[in-house]
């Protein structure tokens, strides 16, 4: 018997095990990519970025804080409409109800920080700490995007981290830069990441 006896009892265990794990990971990643791909609308984000840039230009010209706040609240409502409309449209294209899967995840992860942001804004206005508002908004929006992005493609949580970084910088910068931080965050970050999503994940 020249050929070495085959090790019957242990058929290359580590390799098989690793490959099974690798296959499972691949399936999960592909499914996640496929849902994110269909759920998030890059064009919607680009549109939000454009309106936010316009809003920051208008807000910067306001004489009073209340007028500044009103501009941004209006922009917030416009963004919600754009986001809802673009995700609904995308969900329709692939015949997936908005209420299921990615749409619901995005709504659920963004709503709590937005409510917190609204309450904190009221409190900060009452306390006269209006300079902190841009930083707080950017930070809270970032947290919502990160948690929403956990189920999504990697660029989404990265965008959230960028928002949180900007928010942190805004909190510790002179109030004169506030409008620039708002434009860079809600304007430029949405534009850049929207473009990445359109290019990499098709629309």
């Amino acid at each position: 018997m020249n050929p070495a006896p085959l090790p019957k009892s242990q058929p290359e265990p580590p390799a098989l095990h690793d490959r099974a794990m690798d296959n499972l990971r691949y399936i999960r990643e592909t499914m996640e990519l496929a849902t994110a791909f269909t759920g998030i609308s890059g064009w919607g984000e680009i549109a939000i970025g454009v309106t936010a840039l316009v809003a920051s230009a208008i807000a910067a010209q306001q004489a009073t804080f209340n007028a500044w706040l009103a501009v941004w609240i209006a922009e917030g409502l416009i963004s919600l409409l754009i986001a809802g409309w673009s995700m609904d449209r995308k969900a329709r294209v692939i015949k997936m109800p908005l209420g299921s899967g990615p749409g619901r995840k995005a709504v659920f992860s963004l709503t709590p920080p937005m409510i917190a942001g609204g309450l904190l804004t009221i409190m900060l206005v009452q306390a006269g700490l209006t300079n902190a508002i841009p930083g707080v908004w950017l930070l809270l929006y970032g947290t919502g995007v990160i948690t929403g992005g956990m189920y999504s493609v990697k660029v989404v949580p990265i965008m959230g981290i960028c928002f949180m970084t900007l928010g942190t910088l805004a909190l510790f910068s002179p109030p004169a830069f506030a409008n620039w931080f708002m434009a860079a965050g809600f304007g430029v970050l949405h534009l850049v990441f929207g473009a990445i999503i359109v290019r990499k994940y098709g629309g």
Partner: protein
Amino acid sequence: MAKQSTAKKTVPQKPLNVPQVAATKEKSAAPSLDRLIHERLRLGIISALAANDSLTFSHLKNLLNTTDGNLSVHARKLEEAGYISCTKFFEGRLPKTEYKLTAAGRIALEKYLSHMESLIKQMRNA
């Protein structure tokens, strides 16, 4: 990578006496692996379609980061096996191909998943 290529070579082409017996015994011990979806790209197609009602050819191509030729060859194999269904239609002037996972395809993926899980469990217990 190296391990994968050697593993493929161990499939005996010509009848060898002793190893052949060992190999068949091993196969009967474990549930048979669905070769059709074991291949990477085909597994990707099935997984992507499991997460969506339907996907067009170009969506799938972007998602799986592959070429037209590669995708159409593998999608056809899955279609022939009845794992996915394919409908062709026109959107304006553009021809579009849309894929869906069939019930048989979903069962095949579930079987494959439990197969992989049992492989991992076996190693944990050993």
